[in-house]
């Protein structure tokens, strides 16, 4: 009886591990396949067959991306928009979060409500009037428009507010007695104590901006201002040739994909813990 139970136990454990490894394989194999293809020779990458190792090893996929297709410009635009946009987003969310964390602030409930309501309006649902607002401001076709859109978000403000609320009150009290004003309390006491919160908001925002597609296809109509995702999408879905008649082989497409995910993969091990924490902190709306 006991032996039977142990055998059952072992069988379950083995099956469970096999199941998990299989699921994980569906995530790893596509990526590995892309890496192998990106390092293959131009025509070798197009030949059918199971490709798990570069065939006719070559860097032509990567060199074509930089030299012939000039993905450098979109890459640079993406870096500018993501970095500046994230810094601005983190700063503004923290400022607003700090203000909303002050229980004595008059009108606090009204402003909080104003921000909460925006969380119920998906950006996609107002994309057209948003485009028209940008047009009225004369910002279409500029990187400034991309940096400005999503300059702050209800989710991030709430997350920062919840983070500031968790700072022990006596730390703030003693600073207040020393005569510190709100800006000094914010900058010298609350910000240094909230590095984890700032990192969480910053990471979410950076990934979101780096991966953003819709804002660019809405606001940018000039190839020198394109971001990486839009340029990559044109490259991948543009069939196998560009307007200039250059044949785009699979290794080039996959090299583009690897370039687009590399910054994320590098940051990921450092960032992993913040992603989970952020969801729980942001979910508390009371």
């Amino acid at each position, binding site marked *: 009886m006991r032996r039977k139970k142990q055998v059952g136990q072992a069988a379950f*454990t083995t099956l469970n*591990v096999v199941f*998990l490894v299989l*699921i*994980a394989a*569906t*995530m790893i194999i*596509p990526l590995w*396949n*892309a890496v192998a293809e990106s390092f293959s020779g131009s025509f070798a990458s197009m*030949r*059918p*067959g*199971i490709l798990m190792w570069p065939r006719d090893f070559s860097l032509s996929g990567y060199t074509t991306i930089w030299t012939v297709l000039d993905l450098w410009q979109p890459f640079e635009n993406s870096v500018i928009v993501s970095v500046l946009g994230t810094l601005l987003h983190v700063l*503004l969310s923290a*400022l*607003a979060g*700090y*203000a909303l964390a002050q229980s*004595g*602030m*008059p009108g606090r409930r009204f*402003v909080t409500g104003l*921000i909460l309501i*925006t969380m119920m*309006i*998906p*950006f996609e*649902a*107002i*994309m*057209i*009037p948003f485009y*028209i*607002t940008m047009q009225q401001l004369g910002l279409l076709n500029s990187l400034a428009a991309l940096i400005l*859109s999503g*300059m*702050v978000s209800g989710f991030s403000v709430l997350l920062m507010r919840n983070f500031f609320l968790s700072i022990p009150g006596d730390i703030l009290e003693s600073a207040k007695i020393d005569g510190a*004003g*709100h*800006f000094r309390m914010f900058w010298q006491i609350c910000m240094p104590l909230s590095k984890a919160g700032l990192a969480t908001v910053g990471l979410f925002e950076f990934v979101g901006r780096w*991966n*953003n*597609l*819709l804002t660019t296809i*809405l606001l940018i109509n000039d190839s020198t201002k394109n971001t990486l*995702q839009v340029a*990559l*999408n044109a490259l*991948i879905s543009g069939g196998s040739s560009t307007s200039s008649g250059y044949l785009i082989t*699979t290794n080039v*497409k996959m090299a583009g*994909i690897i370039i*687009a995910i590399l910054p*994320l*993969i590098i940051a990921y*091990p450092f960032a992993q813990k913040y*992603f989970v924490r952020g*969801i*729980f902190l942001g979910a508390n709306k009371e």
Partner: protein
Amino acid sequence: MMSADYPRSQMAIPVRHPLVHHVNKWVRAVPLYVMLLPTIAYFVIFTYYPLLHSIFISMQNFNLIGNRPYVGLHNYRHVLTDPTFWSSFENTLFLGISILLIGFVAPIIMALSLNEVLSSWLKRTVQMVIYLPHLFSWVVVGGLWIQLLAPDGGLVNAVLQVMGIAPVQFMSDPNLARWVIILVSVWKDVGFNTVIYLAAMVGINPALYESARVDGANRWHEMGYITIPSLARTMQVVGLLSIMGVLRLFDQIYVMRNAVIEPQVNVLMTYVYDMGFQEMNIGRATASALLILIFTLILTLFTQRLIRVDHS
């Protein structure tokens, strides 16, 4: 001198008018409102103004350049009688409900399964790997899968060929393509939700398991009577976020659609985009977006109400 001043200042307090106190409260809050200013300005200019503006645009024959005559509810009438709008609606329902159901169950199974793994190395590695696709953009994920499923040179068809199965045209058969979209969507987000459930599992009181074990409970009992019920609140949060997510379905479709499958995979948000920026009919596009927004709000409020009732 101190003693002479003391009673006077004490007397001044009750004399102070409540209005002065009220004004002072606002004066003291000025720095806080300076901090809030950029945020409030952003939401007013880029959320509330466009929202209000869209009510007017939706009743205009809106041209980006030139005159914009008012046409009343004509745009709404046109959208509501447009078969493309309704087929996009139907596609959104089909894709959305499928993604919701499969995407809801899959991470729970994954989390329960990972929770049974004793080796912490394996657990951490699997967690890290399944989270990866969530970090990638839809351009990357769509591009990867279109390439994997390509009939000539794609990995999936190469494997099928080894197994003696003829190449399958995944992305040019509308019914297959719909399922590809559903499963790729689940594939991308399963790790993210699994990690949320795992984090919630860490918070379950271990004493519950100990006392259950004393009572002779086995693995399945523990799972059914302790783990799953303890996750109820997390399930509600994940469910609510997912509902909002499927209504916003846009990037994935924009990246993965092609002319052959479009009628079966176009969703409400791609309808708005196409109407506005391909057919250049801004008025109608805005009218349809407002209809979708109202529908979204009703659904969200309804779900939130449902969850709250269920919770109390």
